């Protein structure tokens, strides 16, 4: 999946960044999303102020996509134990990019460590696949 997050500052300025990986232990009731420290400064700053977060996951070969919205419950530094998982996800993302013609070295070059782990309580789930059902609530 290609993952991206969006936030808004208290004065209404949106900001986003690419995410590296996501995990959910409870069928998307909660989710932990990993953001590269190098590129998530504005996003983490906004989360600290507003706690509101949107996450979009897209499968590039066919553009199927889903958007989760909710409230963040914690922001922490990803631990060394999680680093292997993040590296694995980056490599799988490279496989997907490779399938649509983008060299694997591009995904490998995406800065993914160190990273923040942002935990979010999922409150809304939307179909985001392009077409007439885009935006339809799934939960």
């Amino acid at each position, binding site marked *: 999946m290609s993952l*991206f*997050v*969006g*936030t*808004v500052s*208290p004065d*209404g*300025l*949106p*900001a*986003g*960044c*690419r995410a590296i990986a996501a995990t959910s232990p409870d069928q998307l009731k909660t989710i932990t999303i990993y953001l*590269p420290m*190098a*590129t998530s400064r504005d996003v983490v700053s906004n989360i600290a102020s*507003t706690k*509101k*977060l*949107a*996450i*979009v996951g*897209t499968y*590039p*070969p*066919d*553009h*199927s*996509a889903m*958007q989760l*919205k909710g409230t963040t419950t914690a922001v922490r530094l990803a631990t060394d134990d999680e680093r292997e998982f993040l590296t694995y996800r980056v490599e799988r993302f490279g496989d997907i990019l490779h399938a*649509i*013609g*983008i060299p694997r*070295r*591009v995904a490998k*070059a*995406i*800065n993914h460590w160190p990273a923040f782990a942002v935990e979010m309580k999922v409150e809304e789930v*939307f179909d*985001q*696949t*392009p*077409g*007439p*059902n*885009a*935006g339809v609530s799934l939960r």
Partner: protein
Amino acid sequence: MTLQLSEISRCFQGVVPSIVVTSDANGTPNVTFVSQVHQVDDKHVALSCQFFNKTRRNLDENPRAWIEVHDPVTLQTFRMRIRFLRSEKSGPLFDSMSVRIQAIASHTGMCGVFRLIAADVFAVESVEKNEGFLTEVMPDDSEQVSVEGLRHEVRGLQYVSESINRAACLEALLEAVLESLDKYFGFEHTMILLQDESTKRLVTMASRGYGVSGVGAEVAIGDGLIGMVARTRHLLRISGLHLELTYGRTIRREHGGMTPEVPLPGLPDAQSALVIPLVVGDRLLGVIAAEDRDPMRFGEWDETYLHVIANQIALGVDRMLERDDDEPGVIAPTPAAVAVVPNRRTFTFYANDDCVFVDDEYLIRNVPGRILWKLLREFRSDGRTEFSNRELRVDESLGLPAIKDNLESRLILLRKRLTEKCPEVRIVPTARGRFALQVDGGVELVER
């Protein structure tokens, strides 16, 4: 540091999707992917509004938005803060964005569903490189415009112009143009289609760089990339064609049963396309199309050059089509007949379908088919081999339009189809407005 939009112009070619973040009045963010961000000028960009979605509603509540775009060569990302200004539902910007969407929609069988509702225009407040996104710099091996390259292309323009002026006939003109586009501009896969006024379809008259010539292949006005350019008369340049088509197919899949997909003429794995209408005044003469497997093949530079050349081609074609049959002129040398073992060939005319088959293989239809049938019948009954354009024009059974009959292009099409499918039968120009029918072996005629 704020960059100029011109410094990141590659990001606006639509090769890699961009990401847009907006917010509603309550401060809830929304993230969406867009296939292309259009650069309007140095300070403005536009996004296509195709569905009345959350992004569109958010912009009415909070005009501030944020975009991340990718350089398709280095994959470096850039972030833009933008402010929504207005929606345009007509005008040049709307038309140029719409033709691209309509073409993809037509090609994926989504006409009427996958369409541009509005071009949403934004003021760009800042552009910044996303520092730290990549741990290593990807090589930028894209071609730069050099003075030598410029000289080469200007020479190419001169050569094309001369070829058009010197061409003795339409066939020579079309072939010289495609050859020089390959030689001077590196356009290896090109085709020219001319409009048949009687059927209102585009017919492939010349091609270069394909395994089979495709001469005679037809495209309905409005169908696919080529047909849509003919309908709208707007130039179309698409990079990352594969991405656009999968996006369109996804919408079709989500929407359910739609009309069948129109096969794209030319390269089955084309990644970029540049399609330009051939127009004189307000008359559409045809379309010139170039394709490539490189998603970044055609830039603004190529678009500009091909547009200039297309205008010259249109004027040249128009001149050829209007040329009087009795006007003195030089006849283009006829290629030497290919040595063939004379075979007896059977031609079958299917009146209901208005087409001619040779030995059970489709040959040609409509007016060129009727012309061939007339020639073959008179050859069989009277042994005639010499014919004139004028007698074809006065023969009402052929159904040629009274004006703008495109007879020259129909004869070229017939000549080329015979060369490909039945070299034993040839149509050879002998003088201005006159030609001979040459037949090796025997012919049998069947009418059904």
